[in-house]
């Protein structure tokens, strides 16, 4: 069972029911659950969307798209049924927040899903968890069954004239399925290869119907917005970045864990105050601020607020909230290699630049790290990454290219230290190859 942490500076909204037994429906009701959805039923779709816009909630999956706006894109009239799809395919390395939501507060996900459905006029929602989260699926399935038993799902929910069905399932091991159109493909029983956009899911999505796809944390936040009020929620965060989010601290911090903090919270303070600084008092070498796809930050770049805009200004991205802390023992070539090995493994293989680029980068970095590199390999790595950037079929290519460019740019000397057969100056391990699929 994952350990829960806490810190006085936390503002616990989406995590407010963690550790409270809220996976049981009666306990969830005791804690004020399923009140927001009743309010939503009473007030109607226009009000819901207006509230969502007022909350300044931005998608927690990584791209940070305003949720209220996303919902408003769904056409009111549609010949095909509309759907809500909850993206719980949490797979970005460094990220484990949805894990806790499904474990501790599955009903918040269900409630958020129903509210989204009411907002867009959908009658069916899907909650898709990553394949590794089987034990969480069982919790989710029980929560859904309990909600059906109470009349919160099914025909005439909460005694209203609305019908709403929810189905949950898992994937089977594929990072790429976290991309929204690949997620729809997977849910339709196909290979997790993204779709050509446009059309966007809000117009043509699941089974061809208009579809809202939101990250599990986004959806789990929705009921809280209606509980505390949209304006109140917006006030908690920074400008244009409403509310709080879950930050997953991992790596070499002294107190790793998932902390809920207001948007815009200072990154340096998160590491040194909330997470207790660096393990064994060692010096900080680098921070990956938002999951493995976000460009690495140097110690002198972390005095910034953690919201989509400020981290963006610092040359990285807020991403999925996975803050990975690296101390001075880390070989950055090794770290870059491990990062690219992941993206190589997870590339769906559809387009040339991602499929071939990640493969080539992995090969070059493997050789470079082993001491068999040449100066031009370092340039090649950057050249390749820059030529993948912005040209791939989906964002996975960027996710592989962006951190790679940053590693070479910010740690070039360390790459050069590996040349001419020199052993890795930081080497503690050889790199075990992930066997090709």
């Amino acid at each position, binding site marked *: 069972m994952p350990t829960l942490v806490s810190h006085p500076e936390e503002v616990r909204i989406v995590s407010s029911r963690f550790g409270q037994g809220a996976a049981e429906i009666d306990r969830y009701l005791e804690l004020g659950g399923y009140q927001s959805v009743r309010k939503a039923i009473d007030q109607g779709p226009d009000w819901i969307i207006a509230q969502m816009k007022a909350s300044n909630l931005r998608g927690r999956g990584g791209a940070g798209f305003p949720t209220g706006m996303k919902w408003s894109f769904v056409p009111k009239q549609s010949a095909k049924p509309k759907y809500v799809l909850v993206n719980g395919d949490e797979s970005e390395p460094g990220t484990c927040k949805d894990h806790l939501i499904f474990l501790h507060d599955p009903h918040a996900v269900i409630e958020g899903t129903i509210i989204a459905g009411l907002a867009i006029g959908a009658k069916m929602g899907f909650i898709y968890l990553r394949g590794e989260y089987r034990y969480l699926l069982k919790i989710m399935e029980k929560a859904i069954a309990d909600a059906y038993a109470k009349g919160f799902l099914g025909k005439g929910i909460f005694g209203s004239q609305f019908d709403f069905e929810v189905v949950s399932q898992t994937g089977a091991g594929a990072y790429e399925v976290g991309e929204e159109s690949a997620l729809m493909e997977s849910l339709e029983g196909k290979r997790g290869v993204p779709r050509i956009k446009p059309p966007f899911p809000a117009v043509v999505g699941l089974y061809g119907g208009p579809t809202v796809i939101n990250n599990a944390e986004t959806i789990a936040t929705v009921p809280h917005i209606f509980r505390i009020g949209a304006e109140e929620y917006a006030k908690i965060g920074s400008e244009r970045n409403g509310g709080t989010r879950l930050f997953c601290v991992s790596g070499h911090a002294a107190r790793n864990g998932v902390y809920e903090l207001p948007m815009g919270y200072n990154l340096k303070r998160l590491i040194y105050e909330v997470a207790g600084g660096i393990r064994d008092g060692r010096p900080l070498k680098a921070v990956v601020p938002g999951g493995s796809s976000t460009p690495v930050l140097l110690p002198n770049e972390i005095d910034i607020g953690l919201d989509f805009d400020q981290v963006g200004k610092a040359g990285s991205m807020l991403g999925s909230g996975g803050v990975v802390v690296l101390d001075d023992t880390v070989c950055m070539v090794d770290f870059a290699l491990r990062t690219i090995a992941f993206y190589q493994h997870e590339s769906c293989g559809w387009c*040339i630049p991602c499929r071939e680029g990640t*493969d*080539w980068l992995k090969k070059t970095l493997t050789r470079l790290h082993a001491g068999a590199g040449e100066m031009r390999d370092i340039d090649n790595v950057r050249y390749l990454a820059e030529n993948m950037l912005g040209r791939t*079929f989906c964002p996975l290519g960027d996710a592989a290219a962006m951190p790679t460019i940053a590693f070479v740019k910010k740690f070039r000397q360390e790459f050069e230290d590996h040349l001419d057969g020199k052993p890795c100056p930081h080497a503690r391990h050889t790199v075990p190859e992930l066997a090709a699929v």
Partner: protein
Amino acid sequence: MADVTFTVDGRQLTAPAGTLVIEACRAAGIEIPAFCYYPGLSLQAACRMCLVRIEKMPKLQTACTTPVGEGMVIATETDEIKQARKSMLELLLANHPLDCPVCDAGGECELQDMTFKYGAGGSKFTDIKNHRDEQQWSPVVFFDRPRCILCYRCVRVCNEGMDVAALGIQFRNSGAVIAPNDITSLDCEQCGMCIDLCPVGALTSDTYRYKTRPWELTHVGTICTHCGDGCKTTLGARREENGMQIVRGDNRDKSGMNGDFLCVKGRYAFDFANNPERLTQPLVRQPDGKLAPARWEDAIALVARRFREIREERGGAAMGVIGSTRITNEEAYLLQKFARGPLQTANIDHHRTTDYPGFVKALGGETAHFGSIADALTAPAILLVGGDPTEEHPLLAWNLRTNFRHNGSRIYIANHRAIKLEHQAKATLRISYGGYADLVRSLAASDDASLPAETAHFRDALRAEQNLLIVFGAELRGDAIAPLIQFGLSLPAAKFACLGDFANSRGAMDMGLHPAFTPGYQAVSTVGLSLPQMMDAAGRNELAALYVVGDDPVGRLGLAPESLRNTFLVVQDMFLTATAQVADVVLPSASLYEKSGTVTNTYGDLQPVKKAADTTGVRSDLELIIRIADQMGEDIRALVPFGRGERGDMGQSRGVQSGEADRHAVWLAAHNLEPKLSPFDPDALLDEIQRLVPGYDVDRFALMAGEPQPVRVAAGSNFPVSTGSESIQPANDTLFTSGTLGQYSEKLTEVNRFQAEKTLVAAG
């Protein structure tokens, strides 16, 4: 759709709204490279070669998925785009083996061409390339994964174009691989479309791989000799000891009416021409009863002498002539002229596979209602009565599928068995084998309350169609055809097509290889013997001579060889067929790929065939007929209108510019002005056919340019009441058989066995 105006590289262009940027640019002569984009197939956006810069868009956009928009400003040739293209090629070449010197696609490879054009001359890649061993998936398909660039053309053409879906994509990342449906092999129609569309040498064919280099071949576009659809196949031939041997067939230049398409036969079953059993010397029956090689002069002299003797002793009525469904129109025309002229016989026929005369008679001069194969690609609605196009008319099936996919055409099928095209059908009516006549009568008849609901519903749906292409198979013959035509003519706009089996079945009939009518369905006063009647007559010792040109009645009808013992039998064929084995004289003839002329497909599209190959020792049927006539002492100029007058410009007005001489010659030929200096020139006969056969007076220039010309034949007055439909014998070929000829194609035989085993395994 309304036109939109946009700018590409500073040029203002206009295209219908919805046109993809790549298509709009290509139409304007602006080349945008692409591997995965393939017109007619679904969009992929996978190869990223077509990236262009569109103003106001943050990233480069794929020209293959972006429709043009009003006011759009597009750049296709900036440094940024050149670099993007170059880097895609560099990335592709990282894992692509550079075995171009031995690769089948070498010289014809899109990756080579693009690398040359968009350039990645140097390589930054120094690591080991991913490797997998080559796999053989079927007797004709090989797959070399390292060469594959994953453009998914093969998968799409199999899935969308062929409706076979035998290829999939498995695994992911750089381990992604095209995979066949039977785990390690292909269970499919073996059409080879996947190989044809492959832009590189990843998919190769057994018939061609590692045999030659494309620039060592001569490439000649001609018409496939197998089924009645008349696909163009471009034959690549190479000089060998015994002539020009065909080593491959494809339609990669898409110049034929079949577009991309070719089936297993058009692509691989050319190898009968190279079969070692091919006859290359005349054979003459010796006193010991055995066939022995003879000199051409002796063999032809013997035939001529005996024909003359028999004609004089027993009269033409004691002679018979059987023509072929695979010879040219010119040969068929000449053969009937030879029979009715020098041989003085009305006994002429061929292997009839469907009732064209019945069709022509029922249409009764409404020649505007003849359908063509092209109509199958565009008709909004199609009624298919009988037949199984997937097996017997692969191009028709391809066109119907394409039409359905692109235009959502409505296909109605009435058949006594389940056929694959039902996947695309709007309505399917299952009837009994004997129920075709009843069905078409119910279509034409006024409302009949006793009709089963399903049939009534089917009929009502058809009656609501404004524009219907009606295609019927050999199940419908004789008087049963008329009600169908009557029904079709009651619709605002209907066209008709009749399905027959071989490359020139229709031409053979149009050219009058029939005892009851002359070319163009003109009735004769004295009807001769039909093919079965001739064989019966021979059995009764009433047929003194039989001249068989390109058919094997003994083998096909399973006749007792002794039945022809007292008939002087002359056979012209490529092989020692069952009929040839009992012949007195066997003359080795050229295949359709070894001669020029024209053929007419089953829909009535007239197309030129061109000599693509050559086998030492054989002669065309045209030449053989003329040589026999010549030896008989006939006036050849009466048979073939050659050398008359000097109508042509002999070149005196020829210009001095390079190449003009060739263009001059083409123009003369196209306008029927060049002198036919030899009786063996088929164009001399085509002149006469065009002049004398009603319906064949087509645009000669367009015909020469390779455009199929619809022939509009009509039954002449006092057309016979009976069209002799009782002697129709459909070939019942499958995709992997081709009448008698198919047996001599080793590849087709091998594929047939391979697929038969798959069917057996599937059936347990």
